[in-house]
């Protein structure tokens, strides 16, 4: 990498830039390294960091979503770029809630989703989210009945501009307040301890 101030981007930086521009989907550091002919991942990471800061002031940003990198337009330009045709999937309120519950609790079973919402979840709601590529089947919970459990996907992080699940709005506060713990755990904590207690130890997240 050519040192100094920004000025001339190094060869690898240019190669990473070109590759990510041309890629049809976000790429991991490893995928980039492999595509560039077996560069050390560390060097790719350095190039990404340099690019990220270079593009910070531009109309296009380099962002990391769930370990995968891609370019996207700067969010502050949204008002200029918004398209006439709505490209974004409109979600029903039910689907929105289910998505949030999965994202904040993952992995989570349908029964657990239903216990939070207090209503049955129609199969169609999960289908919509699966089809959008935002959630996936994440195996089965090893409890009687072995229910299927759901989790979010990298595409979900990508779509909502989240670097990782830790970026979910307010997730730290919700966890600290015990609001991501099952009601039974919270109840036990509330009955046993001072209500102000944060019920942290039952944390299963």
């Amino acid at each position: 990498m050519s040192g100094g101030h920004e000025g001339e981007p190094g060869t690898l930086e240019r190669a990473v830039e070109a590759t990510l521009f041309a890629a049809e989907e976000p790429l991991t550091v490893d995928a980039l390294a492999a595509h560039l002919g077996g560069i050390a991942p560390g060097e790719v990471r350095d190039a990404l960091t340099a690019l990220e800061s270079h593009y910070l002031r531009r109309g296009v940003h380099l962002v990391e979503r769930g370990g995968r990198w891609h370019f996207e337009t700067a969010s502050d330009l949204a008002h200029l770029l918004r398209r006439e045709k709505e490209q974004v999937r409109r979600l029903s309120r039910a689907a929105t809630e289910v998505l949030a519950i999965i994202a904040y609790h993952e992995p989570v079973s349908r029964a657990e989703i239903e216990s939070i919402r207090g209503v049955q979840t129609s199969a169609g709601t999960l289908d919509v989210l699966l089809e959008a590529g935002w959630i996936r089947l994440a195996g089965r919970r090893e409890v009687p009945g072995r229910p299927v459990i759901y989790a979010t996907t990298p595409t979900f992080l990508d779509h909502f501009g989240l670097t990782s699940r830790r970026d979910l709005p307010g997730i730290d506060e919700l966890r600290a307040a015990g609001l991501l713990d099952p009601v039974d755990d919270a109840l036990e904590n509330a009955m046993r301890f001072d209500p102000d207690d944060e019920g942290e130890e039952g944390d299963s997240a």
Partner: protein
Amino acid sequence: MTADEAPLMFAPGDLARLDSDALYLELDGWEGPLDLLLDLARRQKVDLRQISILALVDQYLTYIERAGAMRLELAADYLVMAAWLAYLKSAMLLPKAEQEDPSPEELALRLQLRLQRLGAMREAAARLMARDRIGRDVFVRGAPEGLRTDRKTVWRSDIFAVIQAYGQVKSRTAPRIYHVANRPVMTLDSALERVSAMLGVTLEWMEIRDFLPPHASPELKRSALASSFVAALELAKRGRAELDQDGAFAPLRVRRLKEGAAQGPGA
């Protein structure tokens, strides 16, 4: 709060709608009793942790009563919840004395915790939907060239493999010549002749070994033994000889049959 969330957030003036005809529309928007309870709780404009379950129960029951009066086909879920809340209410109003295991306080707390969780998720969903979303607020490259990886096979071999392969082809396809060794044998015909001649000498039992040529090579001897045995069998079949053996592998003996006794098919 973007346009997406508008239907699920209630403006401060919403309470008024409780008394209006809009009731059914709101019911359409709600999925179940917990939903309705949460909404009622929100209207109290208090933190869900501070909420008065008793007041909430009252509101819910009032609501269901009115809705029921105007429209009968209220979902069973709503009525079950109403019944359960009515029970909860009476339990909470009764003296604390000897309550059943899940105390009304516990039931109320459980309800409150559930509402808190649903409320938290609903808010989280709203915040999630309000984020800059790809295809709405931010855009990825419109016409990416795409990356392609062409796999190219590089073949590897070595000269020894080639030479060896050629040797195998040649040896596999070379015409093969089969030699049949010319071994010393005694044919059945000559054995028959020999055994017949020797049997003519005496009427005594003779061991089959005695019929073999005395100075033959071991190979010829084996052939002679086999042929002589078959010859003996043939003579027996013709009624000109009889065979005798004490047991398996015991010496095999042969004797000429008297001419008169011969009933064979004739020579």
